[in-house]
């Protein structure tokens, strides 16, 4: 469209056209130049992770160029993946994240439908409350939760501390508010006529949700799913506070607490572990970039 406009202007005033296009070309060249600089800045740490992961400990401690791999080896990968402990971290992380995604989607989709379409007493307040909940950080809640778990143990005998499944109970507090917020936005954008037609045809509210809203709002659901997964995969504070035994740890905490032993840093393995731990979100991002971006930015663009 912009090109058409310029071309139209060019017919009348050729000189203006030329200077504009030259301006644009220079702007483009400078943009590429600075984009390269910023990409270098943004990609240096992950790239350095990868470089280090291919080195043996001997090469890491040698005083050679740290930015180059002289003798690439996969020993860090084989050692780490052959080690039961790391696989346990990975399994814990995967189980927690998948369960949290399921819980989150069930809670947030039904609640978002009720809030977006079936107004009830206090529903507007609740929608605002959901958004406010999203703004309450984990660092404000971990101490009272810590004490609440002790209270639950003393009264009911159920031990919530130091179990990976406890995380399935508390992670939804981080994922549900935002997922609900995304879904309210998507549901609100569906034309009213659609559910009116369904209701007139005799569909129940549940049927309207499952047969019409969920299929139509599929992009939103995928975005919310990815968001919940990323949040549970990356969460660091809760598992650090609530789990301690090595067989109950999830990936981020497992890498930070077990691979760093006192002052001995096995950097090759730490970088390998961190890179493999970052892989699932990166792979999802590579394949579903648009949904990923839609999910994590919806909070500020919608509403």
């Amino acid at each position, binding site marked *: 469209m912009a090109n058409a406009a310029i071309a139209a202007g060019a017919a009348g005033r050729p000189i203006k056209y030329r200077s504009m296009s030259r301006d644009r070309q220079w702007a483009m060249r400078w943009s590429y130049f600075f984009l390269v600089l910023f990409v270098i800045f*943004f990609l240096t740490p992950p790239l*350095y992770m990868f470089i280090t992961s291919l080195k043996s400990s001997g090469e890491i401690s040698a005083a050679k160029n740290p930015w180059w791999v002289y003798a690439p080896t996969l020993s860090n990968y084989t050692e780490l993946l052959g080690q039961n402990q790391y696989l346990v971290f990975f399994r814990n992380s995967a189980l927690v994240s998948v369960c949290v995604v399921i819980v989150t989607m069930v809670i947030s989709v039904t*609640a978002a439908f009720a809030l977006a379409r079936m107004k009830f007493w206090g529903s507007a307040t609740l929608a605002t409350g959901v958004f406010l909940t999203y703004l309450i950080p984990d660092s404000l809640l971990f101490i009272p939760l810590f004490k609440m778990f002790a209270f639950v143990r003393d009264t009911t005998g159920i031990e919530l501390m130091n179990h990976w499944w406890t995380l399935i109970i508390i992670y939804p507090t981080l994922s549900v*508010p935002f997922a609900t917020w995304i879904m309210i936005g998507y549901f609100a954008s569906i034309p009213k*006529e659609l559910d009116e037609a369904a209701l007139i045809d005799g569909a129940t509210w549940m049927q309207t949700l499952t047969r019409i809203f969920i299929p139509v709002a599929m992009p939103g659901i995928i975005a919310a799913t990815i968001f919940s997964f990323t949040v549970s995969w990356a969460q660091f504070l809760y598992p650090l506070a609530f789990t301690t035994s090595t067989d109950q740890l999830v990936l981020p905490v497992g890498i930070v607490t077990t691979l760093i032993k006192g002052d001995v840093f096995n950097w090759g393995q730490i970088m390998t572990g961190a890179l493999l731990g*970052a892989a699932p*979100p990166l792979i999802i991002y590579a394949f579903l970039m648009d949904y990923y971006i839609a999910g994590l930015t919806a909070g500020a*663009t919608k509403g």
Partner: protein
Amino acid sequence: MADIAAPNATVLAAGSRSGLHKLMQRKSTIAFLMALPLILLIAILVAYPAGYAVYLAMLNKSMSKFVGFGTFEFILKRQAFWDVVYQSCLFAISAVIFKAIIGFVVAHFVHNIPAKGQRKWRGMLLVPWVIPPAMSTLAWLWLFDPSYSAFNWIFAHFGISAVPWLGEAGWARFAVILVNIWAGAPFFMIMYLAALKSVPEQLHEAAAIDGATWWQKIWYVNLPMMRNIIAITALFSLIVTFANFDIVRVLTNGGPLTATQIFATWAFKVGIESGDIPQGAAVSLFMAPILAIAAAFILRNISKRGSEV
């Protein structure tokens, strides 16, 4: 569709007012039940703990006696607390300002290049935001390593003496801010890019015809059009950066001494590691007023946007 549905609705309403009333009642009951899991989750695991934190903060160290605001008074007298306040504000404000500037600039660069290449560049620029912060901070920790720092290796080639990245208060603070900027700037970039795409092209054309320079176009066209998104993103990031735990915990763990200790890490140290739960709760509660102010501004902005649309 609406024309057909509307008469039906009026017929229904006129025909059986009591039946409709009952339906409405049933509808709100179903709606409430559907929202109930959400309400319970927020009530039990967010609202209750938040209130419980206030109660906990008013107990003495062994949690056997109610001491009112005694713990708060005690914390206010500690120099360590004021260091934490200073560092938290310093990190959050400086990081958010730089994130916003970098995000704004990079969004313009991406917007300037041909549309078909934008996806690729955007994809690369967003990588820091996708890697879990605890993991990417480990990479920074390794880059800042006292004896093997890869940055210092480059500096050595230019004759610059080794920088004590995490060993000296000033440098450690700089390192924390740098990692925060690195992890957060891509989010700003993507938000500003979306806002930039929504600025109508006609405005730029009109500005160009009036002889505006590129700088004037950014300052008088783009910036006012993006004002709302800029404000919401910055406030939002302010909350996240202010309450951040992962980066400082992994990078410096508050050190050297307490030079990079912030609210979240100090609350963790006092409350969980030293076992003084009331004091830990009190420390984290000091975050609440600042978070509340930012949240109030965000809500005001969002409702303002709602009424504009």
